[in-house]
Structure formats: structure tokens, C-alpha cells
């Protein structure tokens, strides 16, 4: 039987302030629509005259397109248009801001429809629009493409080898920040240096150096990508899509199609998961071109196979980590060499991986080398703390081994070396107030850690991880209704309850309840620019915009109260939901009724681009049992810890921690792209990819640690990402504790673990 906690009883509220609304658990505003089937997701849209599209995708991982003949498809009854890269044209090149990173326009365009070469199996080659989806799918099969298959590379080792097939003839390696003439598949090599690693290792009594490999995994959202476009007769393009960033879709699509952003309106539909994978555009420009050619609204929806084969997985990686410590438990030097697969186009998230690899530790001497490597796989996209999980698996495994060699408690070793306010990371950034020490202390004190684990084949592991979080731009407006409620309009698509966490921050300011706010997520014509739902930023930044918009409302309503009372607006105060001046007082709701007679409606607005981002640290304690016959790892008990800053809605904070933890568990134990020698994914169904099910897991206990972020008016840090970082490392350490083997490869699936156990049994000394 697995452990089942009674409730979420161990949350630690360290934030000092008392709030009325923040920290409570109201029912989410979009909840009823989502439990009754009424909520409209991208694929649910219907429009007058809607037609359907399908995409032809490359059967080869790497192949030159000699010719494309679309005539047979175009001749089919019911087919209304066919488009290829030739219709896309060349809109030049520049850097495009994707919110959590940027990308070359030429790469974005090349990924939408392949031009000249297909760079991965599943690369889009052509699009068809037809009266029915079935006709479109049949027409796609009638497009004749003459291919010249080329050898493919699917790992960094293959791609970096001498004489490896080259994906991009024009790619030149950026070496330590400088352009070079070096051709090949390495887009960039960069380095972070701090202190002197050589001198540091010279002081060390214990040095551990290990190599690690992690498989390509997918974000695994349940809703496939979709896009519906109408290129109207007035030249205006409307897009309905499930996206993490409607403005990013607008700007990217406009750039690819070479039209002004003002000609594009994006309506964000409800979104069925994203985790970073629904930031890039795939279908939108194709749907737009098909609509332009047909004069009809066109809907494109991916199949699950398309999702696996053509949308951003997270990078596979090869990482070497070396760390040295003195006998008294001080980590004195660390080195990492990290090569990440970017997929077909550069930008693999190796940069954040390199920034995070040793971020949990205050180490004087560090060197990190990072390599961004293109391979014949889909172009990678962000996945929850992108780059950090690969790095933490490596670093946390080595830290655990050092603790074992020194004979100290693994949490004590981490506490002794924990990064804190003022610690300088290898990439040069000095930490502001952070909560890693509090996370580690909560782990140590937790009943889970205090309860001994007994029984054969069982082991316990711990690990910690870091993610920066981001700020970025957000906009919000508020209208005051005559019944004392407010309507709140914001631009962050709601993937996990953020309408509510944003509304709660406005309610807190105005002294009303969360239920008295009606939040809605608006299209790109109806709200100010708002960056992606990503980087754990929505509750932090868009919540801040709501806070400021509510302050704007308060300022304007003070003036109204002043008119009513015949006093100067400066003499009106507002606290606890009530305006006061001398003996006069009016609750927010009462004054809301009097807006018409005091000058008309009140609307508040705010835009923010906040600094003061508070990084988030997460930790796990996990108990496992490894079946000695099958090497299947069963999780007996799992506790996730995270510094959330102020937890606005604790249920959804816990939900982020649980969801991220389980994605990390899947990454650690099961999930991977099985690639054939031809560079084809052999397990592109949900049955064969095998994400965790309810049956694979115990309850995921949570402990929220609230070290208020001084950079946010309510102390919010953001909570969406850090939870995925520690699980693979914690599981590896638990498996070591249970079996004696140190797993150097993800996933730690039964066949891999069985082989490692057999290797240890047959040669225990060599395996050490």
C-alpha cells in the first residue's frame, strides 16, 4: 500500500502579511463551463462556411525535396486549395520574440512548411483544404513528392562527430559569443566561468565525475495543436487557436506572412495543456494561406502522431558533471559539459540548463560548457523549466554520490552548500532573497523524512532544483459594475486556474470577494499586449497588472467619493474595502452604485513589465520499491516541496506542484522517443509513449513554502515550473538506495534498470 496523506497539512506560510482573499480556495470562475463540456477549446470552434485542412508530412528524417506535384490532389472533387512553401514566400530574416526566448524568422518559417529539405520525420511539406476533413486527408496522399533521402543524425554525439551529415549548410558555430566560419551541427558553444576550477579541485578530498544521457521526451498535453483561420475579404486575418500566447501567435504569424500585426487578430480558445509546447506556431500560417486561397475559414487539427513527430519535444542531452568536496562537506569546485539536442533548428534550452545546473549551490569555482546542437528531430520547444531537469538529474546524482562518499546526510550536505541571498551563480547573476534553505529545512523536518523506510528492495532519495521564472509584459483592465462587482479583462490564456489567481489579486485590493470579479481572457484586439503563459509568470506578472488596475480604480473612486462629500480627493482614504473621509464612509459596493451620478463609469487599467522576479526552488523526497524480478520501480511515497512565494490559491499551487512532479516522474521512469536507425519515432502513440496513469502513482503530497518575494506587491514568485526539475534526480538517488546501482541514463525504465542491476551483480567492483 502506498502512503496517503489525509490533507495538505504541511504547508508552511512564512509570508508575514495577512490577507482576506489571497490564500483562500475559491472555485475557479471558468469551472462550471469546464465540468459541463461547455468550454470551447480550439478544435470545438465552428464558423459559417468552415472547411477543413490536412497536412502532408515528410516520411523521412532528412531528405532533399526534389519536386512536389500537387496536381492530382487539386483535381480531387471537394479539394479547394493546396499550399506549399512556395506559397509562403520569403519574408526575410530577423529575430522573433517568443516570450521565453527568441528564434530566427527563417527557422520559424522553415518549420511551418519545409523548403528545399525536410529536416525531421513529420516535417510539414504541404497543406490541403477541402469541404470535408476526410477528403482533405485523402488528397494529402495524392501529393507526389520526389525525395532524395539523406543520412540522419538523432543524437548530439552523432551530430557532433567528424563527417556527420549537416542539417543546415549555412549554419556557423557561434564560439564563446563570437561568429566563426566553423560549419557543422553545433549552433553555439558557450561557457560560464567562476573562480578557478583547477584550484578548487586541488583542495577537494572527494571528487566524483559522471556522464549522463537523457532521452527526448514530450510535453504530452492531451489537446493536440489546432488552428482555425479566416482571411477576410477586407484583408484582415482572424485566428482562433489554443495557444499559450495569443500575441506571440499574432506577431509570429504576421512576420511569417509578412503582413502588419494590425492585420491579424488572434482569439485564444480554451487551451488543453501546453507546458511550453504551445508557444511556437505550427498550423496558423498554413491555415491562413489556405483561407486566403479559398476565401473560407479553414480549420487544421493535428493528430496525436503529428503532435509527437512535429511539435516541440524537450531536448535529449549528453551531460558530464564533475564535483569536488572537502571532508568537512564543503563543495569546492564543479564542472559541467552539456550538449543538448535543439532538434531541427537551433535553440535547445541548453543556456538555461547551464545556468541552472549548479544554481542550488554556493560554489566558488565553476566552469560550465554548453553546446547547442541541431539534430534530425522536431524543433524543440519549452517544457516546464526548459533545460533545467536534464541538468538537475546529472548534478543531483553527483551531489548524492558525494554525500554517500563523505558519509553525511544528503540533505545536510545540500544545506551546508545551499545557495542563498547574495550567492553568485556561474552565469554571473547574484541571487536576491530566495527560499532554498527554507525548502531544505522543511524537507528535513517533514514526517516523510522523519519516518524510517523499511523493507527489502526499497530506497529513499532526495533532490532539489531551481527555476528562474520570468516577468515579461502583461496588461489588464477593470470595469466597475453598478452592483459593486468588477469585470476584469486580461490577456493571459488560462491553462491552470489563472483567471482566478489574477482575479483574487484585484479582489484583495478592492475589498471584494473573488466571486465578485468576473475575469475574462480577451483577444488581441481587446486587451493590451500580454506575453506568453509561460515562465511561471501569469500569477506573478498579470496578477501584478490586476493589482495595479485595481489601484487605478481605487484612485478614480476616491475622486468620486470626494465629489459626493465635497472634500478634496486627497482627503479620502481607502482601506478594507471602504472609502473614508472624516465621518463619511462608503463601502466599495455602495460607491459603485453612485458612479453614474458622479461623472459616469469607472474603468481602471494597467500595464506592467516587472522586474523583481523571484526564482523558485523545489525539492522531492521519494520512496521506491524496485521489483528484483522485473526492475519495475514502484513509488511508495512522494512529497513535493516548493517555495511559491505567496501562494495566492493554494489548491492550484499544489496542483502545479503535483502535475510537475508527475511529469518529472514520467521523464525519470518511462518516457522517451524510441528512434529507429532511420530517425523515425517508433512509439508515436499514447499507448507506446506511456505517460504516467492514475494507476502508476501514489498520492503526491505537497508542502508549499512561502518565502515572500520582495519583488512583488503580494510576494508572489510563480509556481508553474520548478516542480518538474528534481524528480528524475530524486528517483535516481532512491533507486541507488534500493538497488545499489547509479543510473546514468533517463528514463530509468525496467529494461535499463534490469541491465544495470545485472551488471552490478556480475561485477560489483567495476560497477562502482
Amino acid at each position, binding site marked *: 500500500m502506498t502512503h496517503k496523506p489525509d490533507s495538505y497539512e504541511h504547508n508552511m506560510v512564512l509570508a508575514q502579511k495577512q490577507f482576506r482573499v489571497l490564500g483562500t480556495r475559491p472555485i475557479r470562475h471558468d469551472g462550471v463551463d469546464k465540468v459541463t463540456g461547455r468550454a470551447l477549446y480550439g478544435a470545438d470552434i465552428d464558423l459559417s462556411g468552415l472547411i477543413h485542412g490536412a497536412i502532408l508530412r515528410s516520411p523521412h528524417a532528412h531528405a532533399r525535396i526534389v519536386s512536389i506535384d500537387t496536381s492530382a490532389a487539386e483535381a480531387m472533387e471537394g479539394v479547394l486549395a493546396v499550399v506549399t512553401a512556395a506559397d509562403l514566400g520569403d519574408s526575410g530574416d530577423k529575430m522573433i520574440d517568443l516570450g521565453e526566448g527568441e528564434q530566427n524568422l527563417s527557422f520559424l518559417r522553415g518549420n511551418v512548411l519545409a523548403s528545399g529539405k525536410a529536416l525531421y520525420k513529420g516535417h510539414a511539406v504541404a497543406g490541403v483544404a477541402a469541404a470535408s476533413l476526410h477528403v482533405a486527408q485523402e488528397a494529402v496522399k495524392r501529393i507526389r513528392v520526389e525525395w532524395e533521402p539523406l543520412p540522419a543524425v538523432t543524437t548530439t554525439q552523432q551530430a557532433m562527430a567528424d563527417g556527420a551529415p549537416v542539417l543546415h549548410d549555412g549554419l556557423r558555430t557561434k564560439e564563446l559569443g563570437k561568429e566563426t566560419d566553423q560549419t557543422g551541427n553545433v549552433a553555439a558553444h558557450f561557457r560560464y566561468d567562476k573562480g578557478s576550477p583547477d584550484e578548487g579541485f586541488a583542495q577537494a578530498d572527494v571528487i566524483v565525475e559522471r556522464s549522463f544521457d537523457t532521452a527526448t521526451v514530450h510535453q504530452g498535453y492531451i489537446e493536440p495543436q489546432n488552428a482555425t483561420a479566416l482571411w477576410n475579404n477586407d484583408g484582415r486575418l482572424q485566428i482562433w487557436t489554443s495557444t499559450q500566447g495569443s500575441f506571440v501567435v499574432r506577431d509570429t504569424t504576421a512576420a511569417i506572412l509578412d503582413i502588419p500585426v494590425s492585420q491579424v487578430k488572434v482569439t485564444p480558445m480554451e487551451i488543453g495543456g501546453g507546458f511550453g509546447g504551445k508557444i511556437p506556431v505550427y498550423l496558423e500560417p498554413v491555415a491562413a494561406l489556405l483561407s486566403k486561397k479559398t476565401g473560407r475559414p479553414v480549420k487544421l487539427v493535428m493528430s496525436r502522431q503529428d503532435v509527437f513527430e512535429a511539435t516541440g519535444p524537450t531536448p535529449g542531452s549528453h551531460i558530464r558533471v564533475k564535483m569536488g568536496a572537502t571532508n568537512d562537506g564543503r563543495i569546492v569546485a564543479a564542472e559541467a559539459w552539456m550538449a543538448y539536442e535543439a532538434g531541427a533548428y537551433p535553440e535547445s534550452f541548453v543556456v538555461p540548463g547551464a545556468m541552472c545546473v549548479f544554481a542550488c549551490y554556493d560554489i566558488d569555482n565553476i566552469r560550465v560548457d554548453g553546446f547547442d546542437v541541431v539534430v534530425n528531430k522536431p524543433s524543440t520547444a519549452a517544457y516546464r523549466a526548459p533545460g533545467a531537469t536534464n541538468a538537475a538529474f546529472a548534478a543531483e546524482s553527483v551531489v548524492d554520490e558525494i554525500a554517500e562518499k563523505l558519509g553525511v546526510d544528503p540533505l545536510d550536505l545540500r544545506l551546508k552548500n545551499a545557495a542563498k541571498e547574495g550567492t553568485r551563480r556561474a552565469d554571473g547573476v547574484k541571487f536576491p532573497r530566495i527560499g532554498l534553505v527554507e525548502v531544505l529545512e522543511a524537507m528535513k523536518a517533514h514526517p516523510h523524512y522523519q519516518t524510517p523506510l523499511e523493507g527489502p528492495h526499497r530506497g529513499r532519495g532526495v533532490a532539489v532544483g531551481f527555476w528562474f521564472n520570468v516577468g515579461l509584459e502583461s496588461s489588464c483592465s477593470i470595469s466597475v459594475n453598478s452592483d459593486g462587482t468588477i469585470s476584469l479583462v486580461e490577456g493571459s490564456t488560462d491553462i491552470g486556474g489563472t483567471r482566478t489567481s489574477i482575479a483574487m489579486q484585484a479582489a484583495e485590493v478592492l475589498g471584494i470577494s473573488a466571486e465578485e470579479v468576473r475575469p475574462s481572457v480577451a483577444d488581441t484586439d481587446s486587451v493590451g499586449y500580454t506575453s506568453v503563459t509561460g515562465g511561471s509568470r501569469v500569477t506573478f506578472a498579470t496578477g501584478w497588472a490586476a493589482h495595479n488596475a485595481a489601484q487605478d480604480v481605487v484612485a478614480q473612486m476616491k475622486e468620486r467619493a470626494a465629489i459626493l462629500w465635497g472634500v478634496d480627493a486627497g482627503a479620502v482614504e481607502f482601506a478594507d474595502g471602504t472609502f473614508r473621509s472624516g465621518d463619511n464612509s462608503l463601502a466599495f459596493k455602495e460607491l459603485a452604485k453612485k458612479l453614474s451620478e458622479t461623472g459616469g463609469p469607472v474603468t481602471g487599467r494597467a500595464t506592467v513589465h516587472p522586474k523583481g522576479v523571484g526564482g523558485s526552488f523545489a525539492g522531492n523526497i521519494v520512496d521506491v520499491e524496485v521489483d528484483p524480478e522485473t526492475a519495475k520501480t514502484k513509488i511508495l511515497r512522494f512529497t513535493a516541496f516548493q517555495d511559491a512565494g505567496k501562494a495566492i490559491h493554494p489548491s492550484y499551487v499544489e496542483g502545479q506542484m503535483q502535475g510537475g512532479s508527475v511529469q518529472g516522474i514520467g521523464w525519470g521512469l518511462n518516457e522517451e522517443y524510441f528512434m529507429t536507425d532511420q530517425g523515425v519515432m517508433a512509439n508515436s502513440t499514447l499507448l507506446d509513449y506511456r505517460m504516467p496513469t*492514475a494507476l502508476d502513482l501514489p498520492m503526491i503530497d505537497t508542502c508549499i513554502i512561502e518565502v515572500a518575494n520582495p519583488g512583488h506587491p503580494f510576494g508572489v514568485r510563480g509556481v508553474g515550473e520548478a516542480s518538474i526539475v528534481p524528480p528524475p534526480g530524486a528517483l535516481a538517488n532512491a533507486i541507488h538506495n534500493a538497488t545499489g546501482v547509479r543510473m546514468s541514463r533517463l528514463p530509468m525504465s525496467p529494461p535499463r534498470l534490469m541491465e544495470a542491476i545485472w551488471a552490478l551483480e556480475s561485477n560489483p567492483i567495476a560497477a562502482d
Partner: protein
Amino acid sequence: MMPKKSYVQAVINGESREFLCEPRQTLLEVLREELGLTGAKEGCGDGNCGACVVIQDGRLVCSCLELAVESAGTEITTVEGVAGRQELHPLQQCFLEDAALQCGICTPGFLVSAKALLDKNPDPSEPEIRLWLANNLCRCTGYDKIVRAVEHAAERMRQEA
């Protein structure tokens, strides 16, 4: 000329519905595209995610795996048929109170699956709930809050019974 479409009659959410469909159309496609019932979602199209499940004659069925013509004469409940006219079903209410959804795309499937479970077994254990719900994938929640919501709904329904 042979007609391309077949006539089908089925009882859907308590209402007799008639529709025409092509033999190749799945029940899911007809529910969504012909009948306007978009609550059932397509996450995979091959029966592995559970986002499209419906209750058909008392059995849980992936509507993406059944041809619409096969549904003739059957009784089908989709997520749109779970709530009463005014009141939510206790499962829906507990999913909201327990924050058992994040993005919500898998929620219709979980609600329909859980309803089928509680229809058969009003007091399921945690392992029974996990086994039953193993046909439904959720990528957001890690299942913890979903399992709790089903337990709470079962408890509430037993008290009300």
C-alpha cells in the same frame, strides 16, 4: 445513385436523436461535428487517452473507436448529460471544490468515467478508483486531486442516498 450516408437513431442524454452519417465517421466525429456535442474531446483518436469516453448502454466506450452507425438504437450519455437541469452532479461539484482540473481538456472524460464507476460501485477504494481511471490520461494534475474528488463525490452521494 447509392446514398453515401446512413440514417441512425440513438438516445443521447435522454433525448431521441436522428442523424445521417457516413460509414467511416466515428461516433466521436458525429457527436462533435453533426450533433454539436463538443464536450467529448479527441486527444489521440486511437482509444488511449479517454478524453472522448461516453457511457453507452451502461458500458464505458471510447467514442473515437466506435463507428457512428454502430450506435444505432443505443442509449448514450456524454458529459453534457451528467448534470441535472439546475444542479451539478456531485462529481462535477467535487471536481470544482477539490480543484481536480487545470486545463480541463481531460475533465469530460474523467467525469464520464467516474460516473460509470460510481453507478456500479458507490464506495470504491483508492486502488479501485486508480485502476478504473487508468484509461483516462491527465497531464496537468498528477491525478491526486482527481482521485480525492471522486472519493468525496462518492461519499456525498452515499450520504444523500
